[in-house]
């Protein structure tokens, strides 16, 4: 599991549906969620993202509907049979993405590459309030 600490910077809502914006290392992360009674702007939280929910793009051009876009560097690659685990450095935080090995090969992904990470707002959740 990947964890990033952040502060709630904005909350949009429509009935019980919320889009919460977090400031994380001067970047913005967005989370789609149903009502959270205790949330408010300024709240410090630990966000969590599953490794399988992170997509990696290299030399990305164009637009994409994913709400969350983080710039990172590939630190380490562990290859399995069908899958691989890619450790990434995002502003000194280590994140892990798990993807198909085929994708790794197609992308010619290697240690040191600069990449963009994409995460859907519905795949981000609050692990705990700090």
């Amino acid at each position: 599991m990947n964890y990033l600490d952040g502060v709630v910077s904005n909350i949009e809502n429509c009935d019980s549906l919320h889009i919460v914006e977090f400031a994380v290392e001067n970047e913005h992360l967005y989370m789609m969620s149903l009502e959270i009674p205790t949330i408010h702007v300024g709240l410090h939280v630990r966000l969590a993202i599953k490794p399988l929910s992170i997509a990696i793009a290299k030399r990305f051009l164009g637009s994409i509907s994913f709400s969350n876009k983080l710039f990172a560097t590939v630190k380490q690659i562990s290859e399995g049979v069908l899958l691989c685990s890619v450790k990434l450095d995002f502003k000194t935080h280590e994140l892990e993405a798990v993807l198909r090995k085929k994708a790794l090969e197609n992308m010619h992904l290697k240690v040191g590459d600069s990449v963009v990470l994409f995460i859907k707002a519905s795949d981000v959740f609050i692990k705990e309030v700090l």
Partner: protein
Amino acid sequence: MIHIDIQKMLHGSSGQMLLGVDLKIKQGDFVALAGRSGSGKTTLLRILAGLESASGEIKVGDEIWQDKLTCKSVQKRGIGFVFQDYALFANMSVIENLLFVQKDKALAKHLLELTELEELQDRLPSTLSGGQQQRVSLCRALMNRPKILLMDEPLSALDPFMRAKLQQEILILHKEFQTTTIMVSHDPSEMYRLANRVVVLENGKIIQDGSAKDVLLKTSGSQKFSFEGEILDIKKIDVIYVAIISIGQQIVEVVVSENEAKNLHVEQIVRVGTKAFAPTISSR
């Protein structure tokens, strides 16, 4: 308004325990009383009914049921009681069971209509199914138009289908009679369907009190889909790990990463959760 403020020392399996409850209930409310076995739920019902003594006060509207000086008898309290085991008079027919409480044929007929029991009115309880017997018991409890209806796990002896049907009938009766109701229950779906307020007791004290959704929805952070389970096994597959977890009567598998797997072990009790967006629903 009903105001219960009672104390009683109980001798439970884990030693002495003080049952101390201060609870205000609005007229017409449907309150579910939840909590582990031995938390004092049934004792509280019995104290309300006057079947058991306790110190403190019970006030129902303007009437004092119990204080330092007085203690109203069971018969004078105007209580309807539904037990898990029906407790019908075996030698009386369905209609006689109802009329024994109050000689009000019109009300008895109306109640039997609402619960679809009219055709069975001359049968003896022993010839009825469990669900039918509990419906009779429910009707009987309403015959004296009680100020409070007390139900102690009324549906726990019934199968899930009959339980759902009776929940519906309890709702119909509650809507029609607006009887303030307190029901002991262990079943979250039952509490959610019937009660507008859930009070949880633990070791004789109220530890939670709120709407069914607020009390029963087990959340963890922003995750709305959350269950408690026990880890049975953790397997490494390729570069990921799969935890096999038993939840209720089911076994589920959850993919975890290496850093999570390191902190988990077999037999550990864990909370399995996901956001409300991920699960899918399909009919059986």
